[in-house]
């Protein structure tokens, strides 16, 4: 068995994939992090304190996980959907009644979307109340606020897509608020809806925003956000010197 493992891990094919040995020593544990694209946003070493569950509650990571779940379920939903006001609703009905696990797929996406809004808001509260926005993390706080706004945007644009009464009137009410902005209001509303009221143009635009633009920007800013966390020294924790003073 160990001969076989040795044969595989020493083969040219294996070594072209993995540029580190078995991670049971400091060098290879560092190399796992620096040579793997999925791990390289993490630091090589983390402070023991920052791993404490009651410090961060893992809310940032949960946001990323839920976003990933939403991306995958969203992509699958796209297979069974088209943003036209004549057919969108019947696609949803077909999805729920005829497509295997269609209703489950839609439920996962719906509840995932609500969960993401809640988790991102809680994440912001956590970062604020632990003072983790303090230098050098000011800019990352700003990126985080933008990500929260984008999360709301992603959820709001997705809300219209089933094209039922709930969706229609929620978006009608939601976008009417934009109209109260005195200078740009009507322009913003017109740009969102593509017309005087919620109709085909609005559905097309909300769909494009929901499946392309907003998730794309979220993915980009999340990468920046995580990378900055690493660059700024991991999760903000108390300086050991300050702790000694207490």
């Amino acid at each position, binding site marked *: 068995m160990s001969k076989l493992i040795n044969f595989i891990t020493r083969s040219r094919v294996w070594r072209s994939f993995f540029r580190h040995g078995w991670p049971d020593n400091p060098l290879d544990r560092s190399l796992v992090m620096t040579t793997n694209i999925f791990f390289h946003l993490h630091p090589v070493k983390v402070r023991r304190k920052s791993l404490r569950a009651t410090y961060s509650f893992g809310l940032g990571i949960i946001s990323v996980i839920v976003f990933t779940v939403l991306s995958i379920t969203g992509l699958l939903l796209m297979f069974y959907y088209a943003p036209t006001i004549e057919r969108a609703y019947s696609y949803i009905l077909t999805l729920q009644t005829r497509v295997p696990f269609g209703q489950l797929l839609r*439920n996962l996406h719906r509840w995932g979307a609500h969960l993401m809004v809640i988790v991102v808001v809680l994440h912001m509260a956590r970062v604020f109340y632990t003072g983790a926005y303090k*230098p050098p993390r000011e800019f990352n706080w700003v990126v985080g606020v933008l990500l929260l706004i984008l999360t709301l945007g992603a959820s709001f644009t997705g809300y219209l897509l089933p094209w039922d009464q709930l969706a229609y009137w929620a978006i009608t009410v939601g976008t009417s608020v934009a109209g*109260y902005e005195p200078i740009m209001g009507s322009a913003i509303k017109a740009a969102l809806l593509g017309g005087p009221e919620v109709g085909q143009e609005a559905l097309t635009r909300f769909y494009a925003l929901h499946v392309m633009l907003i998730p794309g920007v979220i993915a980009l800013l999340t990468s920046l956000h995580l990378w900055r966390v690493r660059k700024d020294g991991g999760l903000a924790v108390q300086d050991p010197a300050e702790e000694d003073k207490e």
Partner: protein
Amino acid sequence: MKRTTDKKPESFSPEDRQMKTYSLVELVKAPTPMADHGPDDTIFAFPIVAIMELLLTLGVILALLLMSLAVNAPLEEIANPIITTDPAKAPWYFMGLQEMLEHGHPTLMAILMPTLMVLFVIAIPYLDHTPAGKGIWFTSKRGKRIVLFTAIYVCLAMPAYILLDTSFPIREILRGQLPDFVLNVVFPAIIMSVIVLLPLLVLLRYQPNAREVMLALFTVLFLSAIVFTLTGFLFRGPGFELYWPWNMPGDYSPWDNL
């Protein structure tokens, strides 16, 4: 210091070394990476972080799956621009905005105040940049007390304001006697400002630092947003009137709006 050709070029001779002088060039006021820092208590991120992330992923997926098996996403009749639903509500996370609309001029309540709030939230790290208390929940015992008292205050003051403004609508009673601008912009702006700034005025008597001011202000705004969102989402029924969530008229339930 002079160097002669007969000396070895690669190193200074002992007498040269004695002639070496040092001088203070400049004092720089900046944090150094290591000064005042004790040794960091660090461990390798692999595999512990990878394992924790895997467990979190499984947990989140399990929770979502259970929720999705238990409750179906709502789907009503096909959209009909002619038939308005009653109540017509925005998605739950915008219900705070819709609730605000009930209490004053829309531009003030749904545009100006939320914009100021978002700008404040963005500006927080630039208003409070003291390093003290980083990485500690609520910074200190005093910080904890400030947050607690502010939270209790908001949970009493904001619902009271919403109830008073609804049951004793001074803006309706004085309609026609005072200009609309005064009733719907000046009045709500003053009331809101007083409610938001009152805890700060109290706090100022205790000589707070920047972080403590932020703690109070953020708590006021954050919890107000939650109170308004919950009021709009749970307590508004048909006609956008206030009801108990479990006692809505007809067959309306606020949870159907999710």
